[in-house]
């Protein structure tokens, strides 16, 4: 049921949904948490995530890196709790990873920034190539990336972002940009894609999701709209043409 309230959002959904960073970093990230129609869950399912695209070393880096890009903090859960690494794994292992919506005919040459992405790599090839190079570098250090202090992790990610490294032909800035974009996608997309688990990201900002009718609510100017978000996995709307004599289709 829709309702407006001027109560603060944190009071509504509670700090219980915020898992401490340390707890998440010590163990594997949460697998799919059960949908809870009345509110967010505070339970973190300890089941091991299944990775079909990333190998173990790649998954370890991706989990730690994503949690630095979107960390758990006072404002709410981070990338791990939201299942962002699983989103990346599914996307890269599927059509998107193999070049969906990417024009892939040569000749290949680098262009100006205005001309956009011009590398021959599919996203899957780009991630495997870049992660292999990254992990080769990290193996020379005494401490695994995931066990480094956050400041050291951030420093390494910033070096990737700055484009300082050549990752076996992938400019590190290109890899970083793709990692960041896909992490934000996974964080905020509908949970049917494996990220934004239990709609944690939507709850955090107050986005009602696939909910579709604000005809009355739009008149309530300036009031907080409080409503349990809705995934496309649970919307049961159906619509009928106003005039049954007009064919809806051929």
């Amino acid at each position, binding site marked *: 049921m829709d309702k407006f309230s*001027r109560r603060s959002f944190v009071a509504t959904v509670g700090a219980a949904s915020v898992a401490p960073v340390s707890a998440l970093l010590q163990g594997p990230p949460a697998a799919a948490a059960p949908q809870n129609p009345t509110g967010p869950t505070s339970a973190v399912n300890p089941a091991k995530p299944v990775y079909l695209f990333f190998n173990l070393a790649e998954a370890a880096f991706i989990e730690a890196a994503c949690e*630095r*890009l*979107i*960390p758990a*903090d006072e*404002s*709410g859960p981070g990338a791990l709790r939201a299942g962002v690494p699983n989103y990346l794994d599914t996307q890269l292992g599927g059509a998107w990873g193999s*070049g*969906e*919506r*990417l*024009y*892939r*005919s040569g000749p290949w*040459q680098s*262009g*100006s*920034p*205005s*001309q*956009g*992405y*011009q590398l021959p790599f599919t996203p899957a090839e780009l991630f495997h190539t870049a992660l292999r190079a990254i992990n080769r570098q990290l193996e020379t250090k005494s401490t695994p990336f995931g066990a480094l202090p956050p400041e050291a992790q951030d420093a390494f990610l910033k070096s990737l972002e700055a484009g300082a490294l050549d990752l076996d032909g992938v400019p590190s800035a290109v890899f970083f940009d793709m990692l*960041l974009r896909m992490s934000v*996608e996974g964080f*905020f*997309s*509908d949970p049917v894609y494996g990220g934004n688990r239990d709609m944690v990201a*939507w709850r955090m*900002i*107050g*986005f009602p*999701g*696939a909910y*579709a009718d*604000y*005809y009355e*609510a*739009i008149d309530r*100017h*300036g*009031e*907080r*709209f409080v409503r349990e978000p809705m995934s*496309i*996995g*649970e*919307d049961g*709307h*159906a*619509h009928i*043409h*106003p*005039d049954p004599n*007009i*064919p*809806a*289709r*051929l």
Partner: protein
Amino acid sequence: MAQKLKEVDVVIIGVGMVGSIVAKELAAAGYKVVGLERGEARFTVPEFQGPAIHDELRFDIRKALMQDNTREPVTFRNHGSETALPVRRWESFLPGTGLGGSMVHWNGQTYRFQANDFELATRTRERYGKDFLDADVTVQDWGVTYAELEPYYDRFEYLLGTSGKAGNIKGTIQPGGDPHESPRSREYPTPPQKEHFQGAMFRKAAIGLGYHPFPQPSSNLSQPYTNPEGVKLNACVFCGFCERYACEHYAKSVPQTVILPVLLANPNFELHTGCQVQRINLDSTKKKATGVTYIDRAGREFEQPASLVITSSFALNNVRMLLLSGIGKPYSPASATGVVGRNYAYQTMSSVASFFDQDVFINPFMASGASGTLINDFAGDNFDHSGLGFIGGAFIGAVNTNGRPIQYHPVPPGTPAWGKGWKEAVVKHYNHTVMFSLHGSSVSTRQNYLDLDPTYRDAWGQPLLRMTFDFPQNDLKMAAYVTAKGVEIGKAMGAKQVAGAPRKGPYTTTVYQTTHNTGGTVMGNDPHTSVVNRYLQSWDVSNVFVIGASAYPQNASWNPTDTLGALTYWAIDALKNKYLKNPGHLVAA
């Protein structure tokens, strides 16, 4: 070897908005019409239905409704000295594909251009002198006037059922509407949509500054409507999934909801989908088209003979079809000769973000594609440009259409791109920010143009369209000027922080701006500076009509669809009442 089909009266390339309307009118007049659509047939039920249609990843990010760029992209460069490279992923503009065309995923923003826009070269000279424009600017008159188009604007808006408030009916200014608009013959078909909170805040601040706010004219309807074709639409419920999406509610005016049910019931019309037209065929004189050749989705080649060929695809594709068919002389910037591909223009988009305190709840997700409030005080030639060094302008409006969070999570300038600082800012500002759109005009220039790429090809082996474009100095000056005005309005709304983002060069294909690509088959009265005459008929091949925003000699301060609808009915009138009664050139070259 192409299989030759039975000759028909009319073949239409592209069954989007223009193709549907032209086909409906000519089929109803008794002509045998074949419509060739490269994409799929699709309808409100079942293709556009919830819950699957409310999927930001699939439709916004993965661009499910757009032209298949893996087979048919464009190539791009900023300047003629560079090598153009393929736009390997769509971002800056998003041409649609499939039955209903790009209009299926439009916002429904339904503006008329102003009288001044159609005579831009003449009126600029008259008001500011002959040396006012930069030397590279090639703006010109359209060859048709606003007064001539007014009845056709009216007809198109009543087809759509557009919701709005007139500001000028037959010269009498109407309270609540846009006082700058050129006279319209009657009120909008339906009243304006409800105003969202951002719109109301903007309205109050704009009035305080002495401006003239009005409700955005919207083809997401404010109430149920039955159009003159007898087709019924519903009221929009502000779902916030409009542009880049198809409407599940029968509330957005698109071919499926305003005309296709009538067209598809007419036995004079045949729709063929999955058909990629390769070229318009010409006879040995190159002065007459004999039909088109297309390849179907199974790879079979067909020749469809026709007495009349109408290309009604997206602006960029209209240009490419003429170039691939050898109709009209291609434009060369070096010699400034030729016409096809000349005067490519775009839209100069700027924005202003106003950040409010935590107790001001904006609810950006409650919106239609066109339910905002705006001013035209700095659009077109509605203000004195003397001493400013540019022509044109922008509408400024609180016209935010959604709160879909992958794309929409505004943060103040200086916020880190990731990490704790980014996340805190996203959470803090998501529901407390008002975004203005500053929708700016675009002049045509000598160096911005379209031609065929010498290297890259489509999936059928044909050359891609090559775009050479950068923002003209005229438009960058305009963007800086109007953005400063927008920032003043944001401050007048009481925002804690206001950040203006005037459009700056170079133009990039990597950031979405608009899908308002115009020009390349420009209309006009002089065959040396236009591809089609004032009735959108090819100067070179009289039985080819080219109907699209490709006809615009430059782009104005508003979304182009309403003007394209008016031009469509204008051209149909010439076809039905002049051309088809006596085929031949409607204007002597």
